[in-house]
């Protein structure tokens, strides 16, 4: 006991550890993230404005696909984000299940609807893009199919979270499901890839195997960064609302209501 105590206090003095411990407190988390959210929105809007302007007016039209390829600047960032949101959810779920930090539980659960929304955007944009290029709204392409399964995985997590009444129990159950899904996701992805090459003689490749020109690439990168900031802002806003909802009767929420901050 006496040997452990100095070690612990030493750890507490470490500013990074201290900061992480502080972030675990709902009140601190609420105030700390509140400072960031406006900046996230601002960066998102500026980057989106630049990226969209480039995508619509500056980038030349594709010699094969014409103007329709411009949907790429929405479709691809959304697709990347849909996967990253799942990874973030799974990492948060892992932390939440082991250390039982409520803020992280909430972050995991708030990541699910945002990720699901990005998956829907990816699927809708993809099928709208598919109509002029492939001649059909939907093909059972490997990427489309795994994106669809990803949406089902998200819906499962959201469904389970909303079905259980007690919020912390619901979060823990949904976190476990998110982790099981994370283990399965690579397997699903590769099996869908095999399935596609096995069952369909030829598969339509989204990029046609050809690499993208750099003048077309950089607005894509700008847009994908913009989307990350949107996700961050959305996730943090949702998490703060959820925290307020859960802690309605706690002191720190009353202070916010009373002092208006």
């Amino acid at each position, binding site marked *: 006991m006496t040997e452990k105590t100095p070690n612990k206090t030493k750890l507490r003095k470490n500013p990074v550890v201290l900061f992480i411990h502080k972030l675990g407190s709902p009140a601190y988390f609420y105030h700390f993230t509140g400072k960031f959210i406006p900046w996230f929105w601002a960066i998102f809007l500026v980057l989106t404005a630049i990226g969209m302007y480039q995508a619509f007016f500056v980038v030349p039209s594709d010699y094969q696909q014409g103007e329709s390829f411009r949907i790429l600047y929405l479709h691809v960032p959304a697709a990347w984000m849909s996967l990253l949101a799942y990874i973030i959810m799974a990492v948060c779920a892992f932390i939440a299940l082991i250390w039982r930090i409520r803020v992280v539980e909430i972050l995991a659960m708030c990541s699910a609807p945002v990720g699901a929304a990005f998956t829907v955007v990816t699927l809708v944009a993809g099928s709208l893009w598919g109509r002029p290029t492939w001649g059909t709204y939907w093909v059972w392409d490997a990427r489309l199919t795994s994106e669809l399964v990803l949406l089902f995985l998200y819906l499962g997590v959201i469904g389970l979270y909303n079905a259980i009444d007690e919020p912390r129990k619901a979060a823990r159950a949904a976190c476990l499901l998110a982790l099981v899904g994370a283990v399965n996701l690579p397997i*699903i992805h590769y*099996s869908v890839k095999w399935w596609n090459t096995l069952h369909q003689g030829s598969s339509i490749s989204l990029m046609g195997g050809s690499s993208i020109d750099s003048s077309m690439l950089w607005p894509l990168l700008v847009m994908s960064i913009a989307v990350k900031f949107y996700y961050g802002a959305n996730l943090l806003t949702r998490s703060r609302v959820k925290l307020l909802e859960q802690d309605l009767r706690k002191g720190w929420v009353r202070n916010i209501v009373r002092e208006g901050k």
Partner: protein
Amino acid sequence: MTAGVATGSLRSAFVALVRRDLLLAFRRRTELLFPVIFLLVVVSLFPLGIGPSMELLARISPGVIWIAALLSTVISLDGLFRSDFEDGTLEQFVISGHPLTLIALAKILTHWLVAGLPIVLLSPLLAVWMNLPDGTMGVMVITLVLGTPILSLIGAIGVGLTISLKRGGQLLSLLVFPLYVPILIIATAAVMAAADSLPYTQFLGLLVAGLITSLTLAPFAAAAALKISLS
């Protein structure tokens, strides 16, 4: 809940649990038949829905039989922990001192014996109905032998998570079907490869890999899910 001191060895507990559940299942024989009848009905709906063309049926037969197996498994999964949860037996298991993982594995084994094995045994009949291509019957049976335990293992996680819900069964299908995608793909790919007289052992190898992986991981996840549901 605090765990008590376990009485008896792990093996005796495991065997006793499997025996008890099998006995319970056979006391309610009609309930045991529901998923089997469901399987037969689902498969027979396909020829009615798409026409009796033997060529077409032969083409889709591996997929139809496997999808019917998936549906039938989900139907039967709801009963996996249900009665034990409702009468409090599950909580007694938790405080018995025996690892919950082992208890989950015993329940999963029983589930496969009463719900998975009948699918395997009935598959030759389904194969005849669906005009499964000649010479692929053996592969079909092997994929079902290897695949249906995976369905029970992964399904147990979903059941563990939804057990405390009144109508968990509806949610259960949403939770487990996406996780079943790889098994469906690999198993049907094996049968289809055999039908085209292509090598198919690599798919069986993947199914074995899936079985081993889920056998080692799923009982732990199912036990964790049950603990969350019981908390």
